[in-house]
């Protein structure tokens, strides 16, 4: 179906199943360890051999000697894949570099070999016996140094042109009596999902079967097809459980390709998991940014000029980090300039990580807002309320927001948090050795919608089966898709089975960009409408007058059970949702406000967050339990970005030094206080038939800025270089 006009009243509005906080239907499998993740699928490939990847020891250069003989002689080793025997491999359009190096090397830890052996221990031992020599060439590893050579990147359909200009920023800024001009830096970050990238591959004749951990099944097929030069019809991908992705598993990585090559070489299935320490340098990361924000305002706090100039870098001039995205939309102001620049670096590929663009963009723009509030001597909540706008500030009133409750989020958050008790002067509240501060920030994350298909079957017992190649990366897809189908056909939730993430299922939107829940449920909605039609047709009834409830369908005084109508062979229906130009007509975004209370230790410079409150408005909430989890989980990741996360670049050798969980710090239990999440009532009829919006990435946007602002409130120290580890605070804290 085509979604071309705002949704009217539809079966979802009954809210018998949708909108309720159902436990995850895959929960029992996950808490008992019976959900099988990619590397654990012994049943599909019982005789799989083990592959161990070796990555390049240099960043840029050439392999000058590659001796696999000792490895091949090692006990249990079945074969070694290198560029010499891999056949011709192409670089897919989704990748910045090739997934197997040789003879040239493009980045540190780029795969150079896969050793395949009978056991994991033997494969790992074999990798130690590879003898590889390199010639290393100089590379570009320092974003700050390369910034002068950065160029405007290409436009892209999702985020538009790299530069936008409205009014006359330069004059508007110059004439503003109150000005902020600050530069912020954010480091490279690693997704560090708990399940390392893993794949099992097997060949059945010329058919390639890959059991993997991937967010986008159809993209995985496409990219394997491009890389290996085989027809997509001959590739089968399966990924029913995914141990976290956050963007790091949007595209296939070396594990999938090497498993396929290894399986071809040794003529049996091969399984490959990346070692934790290979993830930062072998796979993708969120690129570092340098962001300059200029704000000009009148003395009463109305913003007159906004500029947000951002620079990021990437391998082979791949793609930029769109850190200025939210600055185009968040606040009013007649004169605007948003620019993105891209430097070429020889670090590993930078790519999407949870809320690409906005997550790090807010870390600059929402701190700049706080700096403006300080200059104005104005409450930062009040400043944000004053500059709210209900339409696209670049396009004008003809492009309104489909729904926007930023003001309500800020006001409700301030009320619940007790914001009025915050001390407006920094450094005034002390408890023992702890300096206490409070901070606020807004949150905006675009809510894209993508085409998504599904098939729904009903059997003679009235049991539904939903099939789509959608994935569940922890988001709750299994559960909300089941809720959608149950609501549409009027059956209880436990009468719905959801099967996901097989490439022979109808192609969905996949999981990413917080489009997954809204778009894939809309695909199931469309398929269910078809199934309702098919059932009504089979019963000989008019679908317009037929109601579906309690496992039955009724029309004109007659009632029959769904199973009986479906008959012994059952019925099946398939459709997809297409979204037309609704994203052009309306700006579609989710909103929120973060409130933080923290303490900074006046001697050690350590920051401890004590209270976290997020208030969000993101359309209809399909499942309050799983939606809340998405939001609070993203807030935890936002806390990590503010206080601890950062890949350290060794600019001599071009690698990320802290490449494991001992050195790349992510939040642990002790870092995260009880997290309060409030979701405001909202229906967005312009977004989808479900009237929902994106939830999964909103929570990370702005939280780190609220922490930065709270640290300023606690100490009077304005930090602009993330993350705010104690060493960065220590030298600036007032004398003890």
């Amino acid at each position, binding site marked *: 179906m085509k979604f071309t006009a705002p949704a009217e009243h539809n079966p979802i509005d009954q809210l018998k199943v949708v909108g309720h906080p159902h436990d995850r239907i895959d929960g029992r499998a996950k*808490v008992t360890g019976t959900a099988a*993740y990619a590397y654990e699928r*012994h049943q599909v490939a019982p005789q799989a051999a083990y592959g161990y990847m070796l990555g390049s*020891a240099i960043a840029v250069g050439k392999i000058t000697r590659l001796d696999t003989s000792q490895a091949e002689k090692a*006990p249990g080793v079945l074969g070694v894949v290198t560029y010499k025997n891999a056949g011709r491999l192409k670089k897919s359009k989704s990748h910045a570099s090739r997934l197997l190096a040789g003879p040239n090397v493009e980045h540190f830890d780029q795969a150079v070999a896969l050793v395949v052996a009978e056991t994991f*221990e033997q494969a790992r031992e074999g990798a130690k016996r590879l003898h590889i020599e390199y010639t290393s060439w100089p590379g570009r590893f320092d974003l700050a140094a390369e910034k002068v050579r950065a160029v405007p990147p290409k436009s892209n359909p999702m985020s538009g042109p790299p530069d936008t200009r409205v009014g006359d920023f330069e004059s508007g800024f110059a004439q503003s009596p109150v000005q902020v001009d600050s530069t912020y830096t954010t480091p490279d970050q690693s997704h560090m999902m708990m399940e390392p990238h893993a794949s099992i591959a097997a060949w059945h004749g010329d058919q390639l079967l890959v059991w993997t951990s991937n967010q986008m099944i159809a993209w995985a097929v496409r990219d394997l097809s491009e890389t290996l030069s085989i027809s997509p019809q001959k590739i089968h991908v399966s990924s029913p459980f995914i141990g976290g992705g956050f963007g790091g598993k949007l595209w296939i990585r070396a594990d999938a390709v090497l498993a396929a090559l290894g399986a071809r070489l040794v003529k049996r299935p091969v399984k490959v998991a990346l070692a934790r320490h290979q993830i930062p340098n072998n796979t993708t990361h969120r690129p570092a940014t340098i962001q300059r924000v200029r704000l000009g305002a009148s003395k009463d706090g109305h913003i007159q000029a906004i500029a947000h100039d951002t620079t990021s870098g990437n391998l082979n001039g791949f793609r930029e980090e769109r850190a200025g995205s939210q600055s185009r939309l968040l606040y009013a102001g007649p004169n605007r300039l948003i620019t993105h620049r891209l430097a070429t670096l020889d670090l590993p590929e930078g790519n999407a990580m949870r809320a690409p663009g906005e997550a790090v963009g807010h870390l600059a723009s929402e701190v700049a807002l706080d700096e403006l509030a300080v200059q104005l001597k104005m409450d930062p909540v009040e400043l944000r309320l004053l500059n709210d706008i209900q339409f696209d500030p670049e396009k004008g009133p003809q492009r309104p927001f489909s729904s926007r409750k930023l003001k309500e989020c800020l006001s409700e958050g301030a009320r619940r948090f007790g914001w009025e008790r915050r001390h407006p002067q920094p450094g005034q509240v002390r408890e023992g050795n702890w300096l206490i501060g409070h901070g606020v920030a807004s949150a905006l994350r675009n809510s894209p919608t993508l085409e998504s298909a599904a098939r729904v079957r009903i059997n003679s017992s009235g049991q539904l089966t939903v099939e789509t190649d959608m994935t569940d990366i922890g988001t709750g897809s299994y559960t909300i898709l089941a809720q959608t189908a149950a609501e549409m056909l009027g059956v209880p939730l436990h009468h719905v089975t959801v099967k996901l993430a097989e490439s022979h299922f109808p192609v969905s939107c996949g999981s990413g960009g917080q489009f997954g829940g809204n778009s894939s449920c809309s695909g199931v909605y469309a398929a269910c409408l078809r199934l309702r039609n098919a059932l009504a047709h089979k019963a000989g009834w008019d679908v317009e007058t037929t109601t579906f409830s309690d496992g039955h369908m009724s029309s004109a005084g007659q009632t029959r059970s769904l199973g009986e109508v479906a008959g012994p062979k059952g019925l099946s229906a398939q459709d997809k949702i297409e979204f037309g130009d609704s994203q052009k007509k309306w700006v579609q975004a989710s909103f929120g406000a973060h409130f933080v209370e923290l303490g900074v230790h006046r001697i050690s410079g350590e920051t401890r967050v004590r209270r976290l409150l997020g208030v969000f408005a993101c359309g209809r909430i399909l499942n309050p339990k*799983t939606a809340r989890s998405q939001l609070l989980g993203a*807030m935890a990741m936002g806390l990590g970005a503010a206080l601890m996360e950062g890949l350290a670049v060794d600019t001599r050798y071009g690698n990320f030094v802290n490449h494991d969980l001992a050195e790349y710090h992510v939040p642990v239990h002790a870092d995260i206080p009880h*997290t309060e999440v409030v979701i405001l009532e909202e229906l967005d009829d312009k977004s989808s038939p479900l009237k929902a919006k994106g939830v999964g990435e909103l929570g990370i946007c702005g939280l780190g800025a609220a922490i930065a602002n709270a640290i300023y409130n606690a100490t009077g120290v304005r930090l602009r270089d993330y993350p705010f580890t104690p060493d960065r605070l220590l030298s600036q804290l007032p004398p003890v």
Partner: protein
Amino acid sequence: MQSPWSRREFMATSAGLTGGLVASQLVSAPSPAEAVAQPTPAHYPVTLNLNGQTQTLELDARTSLLDALREHVHLTGTKKGCDHGQCGACTVLVNGRRINSCLTLAVMHQGDQITTIEGLGTPDNLHPMQKAFIRHDGFQCGYCTPGQICSAVGALSELEKGIPSHVTADLTGPIPVSQAELRERLSGNICRCGAYSNIIEAVTEVAGENG
């Protein structure tokens, strides 16, 4: 415990396990031709009591307890997140105490009682901690979850036995089940989905039921 092999053999195999691997990753200069073929690594029998059942395996001395569970017994509920004791996804209970199963070799566990997530409860017969995790949505992707649950069960047992932690104020009296205690004790179990707040609610609820 009677070990079937000598300390010297252990040192040799465990050095090979880590040292050599790191070297080949970092050394780009020609390495000396020391890579002479070595004899097939030794295999040893080991008998484990796994979730109440005795299981005898013939294992490569280098096989971690984690890989023995996942790759040899196909108990894949125990997860490999880092293989270096940094994430806690591989937490199991050995003789009632929680450990990172990636940091111990399987052959060191002759006769040990090992409880994995599969031993705590099944989909049809959930352990109270598993029920609480579902009720409080104490997970998202589910990959750290078995480790969190095993760790939580182990942590509550440690609290009950009066084993103090870094945040315990009184080292001699009974230890209250506070959120600070739970957060401290579970900090070895990373959840990148960030379900921490819900996990603590789940564990607090079970602690209350136990108390």
